[in-house]
């Protein structure tokens, strides 16, 4: 079913490309050329997919508890910045300690930042969709300030110094090691949700908070913990990006990634393992986007439109059901009233 949504989106995207005066065949050929044609481009696709896996996991994980985390962007930049700061600020450590330490620091920063909307929801009933979006803006400003005032590299460009070699995540041939790490984390999430008591509690709260409450589950605790873990996952994506790809934090780092996490989580129907292929698909679009502009003269923003279309087709199961005429309506629901906790 998600495959059909992708096919519909790509077909609609072709119509838009044709409308804007380019050849859809050339455009998609260039897209594949830039993302899947040889080992180098596949490596780049996986590199792009890494933070997307983490962003998708962050959204999917929160979804299981009935929470909609749109704050992936803010959590990601915090993770990226803190990992960058630990990566350059601490020197003289062997890589076996330094690399995980920087990752952990970024993850903890994201978990704390992610816990804020959880606490606001649990204690005050503030809807997480609005608080996470507002916190995105706050996070972008705060990381900007930290990068330009506190941890700034000397020079004209606002950015943090390059991280120590001991904090860098190496590549494994053409395959970025960070991607393998993300895959492992996806499996951990899957196991956690499927086979542990904690995972059961999260899903109970997501299905029916009242029933969960009467069954003796502390709904508030689950809400806060789930948001913290969701923030941790997104931040880890940022930390991996800093340590494995960029090497430092720069303002404007990966702007918009938080929204892609939503597309990926919905495309994967919030299944932690299905997040991986979904992220590779979107990662391929990102990796091939510039080639599309170079070869077919199509603005790379077309991939944003295709992503939005995928989202539309996934979010409305009835459209797809109409095409398939089968009742596979695994409908997603996150709407609760503003005042509910």
């Amino acid at each position, binding site marked *: 079913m998600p495959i059909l949504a992708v096919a519909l989106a790509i077909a609609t995207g072709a119509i838009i490309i044709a409308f*804007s005066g380019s050849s859809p065949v050339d455009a998609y050929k260039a897209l594949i050329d830039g993302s899947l044609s040889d080992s180098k481009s596949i490596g780049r696709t996986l590199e792009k997919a890494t933070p997307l896996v983490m962003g998708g996991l962050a959204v999917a994980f929160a979804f299981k508890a009935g929470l909609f985390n749109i704050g992936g962007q803010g959590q990601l930049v915090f993770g990226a910045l803190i990992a960058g700061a630990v990566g350059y600020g601490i020197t003289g450590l062997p890589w076996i300690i330094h690399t995980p330490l920087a990752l952990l620091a970024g993850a903890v920063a994201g978990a704390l930042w992610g816990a804020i909307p959880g606490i*606001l929801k649990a204690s005050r009933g503030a809807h997480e969709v609005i*608080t996470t979006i507002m916190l995105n*803006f706050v996070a972008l400003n705060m990381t900007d300030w930290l990068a330009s005032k506190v941890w700034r590299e000397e020079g004209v460009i606002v950015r943090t110094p390059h991280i120590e070699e001991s904090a860098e995540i190496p590549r494994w041939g053409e395959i970025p090691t960070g991607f393998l790490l993300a895959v492992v984390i996806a499996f951990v999430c899957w196991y956690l949700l499927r086979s542990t008591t904690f995972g059961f509690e999260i899903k109970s709260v997501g299905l029916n908070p009242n029933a969960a409450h009467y069954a003796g589950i502390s709904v508030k605790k689950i809400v806060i913990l789930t948001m913290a873990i969701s923030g941790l996952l997104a931040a880890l994506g940022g930390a991996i990006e800093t340590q494995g790809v960029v090497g430092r934090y720069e303002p404007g780092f990966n702007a918009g990634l938080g929204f892609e996490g939503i597309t990926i989580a919905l495309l994967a129907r919030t299944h932690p393992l299905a997040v991986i292929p979904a992220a590779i698909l979107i990662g391929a679009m990102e990796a091939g986007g510039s080639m599309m502009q170079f070869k077919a003269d199509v603005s790379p923003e077309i991939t944003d439109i295709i992503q939005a279309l995928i989202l539309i087709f996934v979010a*409305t199961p*009835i459209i797809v059901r109409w095409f398939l005429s089968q009742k596979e309506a695994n409908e997603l*629901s996150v709407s609760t009233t*503003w005042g509910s906790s």
Partner: protein
Amino acid sequence: MSVKESKSIQQVLFSKRWWILTALILVIFTLWTAEFQEANTTAVLAGTLRHSTPLVLGAMCGLLCERSGVINIGIEGQMLMSAWGGFMIASTSGSLLLGVFAGIVIGMMMGAVLAGISVGLRGDQIIAGTVINIAAIGITSFFFSLGRTLPSGKTQVIKLGPLADIPVAGRVLFSNKPITFLTLLLIPTLWFLLFRTKWGLRTRAVGEHPSAAETVGVSVIGMRYFNVMMGGGVAGLAGAYLSLEAVGSFERGMTNGKGFVALAVMIFGRWNPVGAWGAALLFGYASAVQTQFQFRDWLTNDPQFIGIIPFVVTIVVLAGFVGRARPPASIGQPYSRE
């Protein structure tokens, strides 16, 4: 019910003492920042009104939808699409009026998309709104060509005759641009429509108890479609305000979170247009003082701290007040006739 509700909003939820205290603090603070000079005071107050206009329009979009039971998280995207569409039409046709009109129509079309997904297809309303937000970013950046300008410039200030010459109040209230005036008219109009007309009663009935409304012959689906599209039109006006009245050009992501702040404004204003105006003025004031800060060279070395003020205020308002505000009862639930 209508009279009772509008009364209770003023009496119970917002005690008058609270309002008077806030107003007093703001007046003193305004005079202090303005160093008791007329020009500065006028600047702060005019800035407040200017910043509050898109917020109150967005909030009215939100409350039109929510009063009939549909959460609209896509106000941001609707505003962005209209800001872009209004600007493109105005810059190609050369007519600002046509641009504003196009902005409203595009907003209504976006409203129709939201209603189509969430009312017609009974998809999740929050996801439907998020889809609009993401699609708006993609579409506006894809179809936006840099370097376009408005041949006729942005909308011009209209002065209401001698009223505009009154010190402070005249410059703030009676000397504004057309969409600002339109907004000031729209607020009491919408209040009247919601609380004093048959349409308003039906809207609120559909939002509170749709099956009861259906029993007495009100079309729930029809009302929701209509209201969400009207709300989209109002959000479209807010978008046109941004590109054609406030800035005079289109920039990528120019809504900059205003659609979400508008949701907080709506909640703070208790789903009431007049209340939303009060809340929007408070937020507008926070932004206007920011500008004054920059003007006076305070905190200019750390602009990021000033930049976060409206967002922090939104979070505080949401956390502090939403627990005590009661949204329309059927909000968020798709309706299907059994």
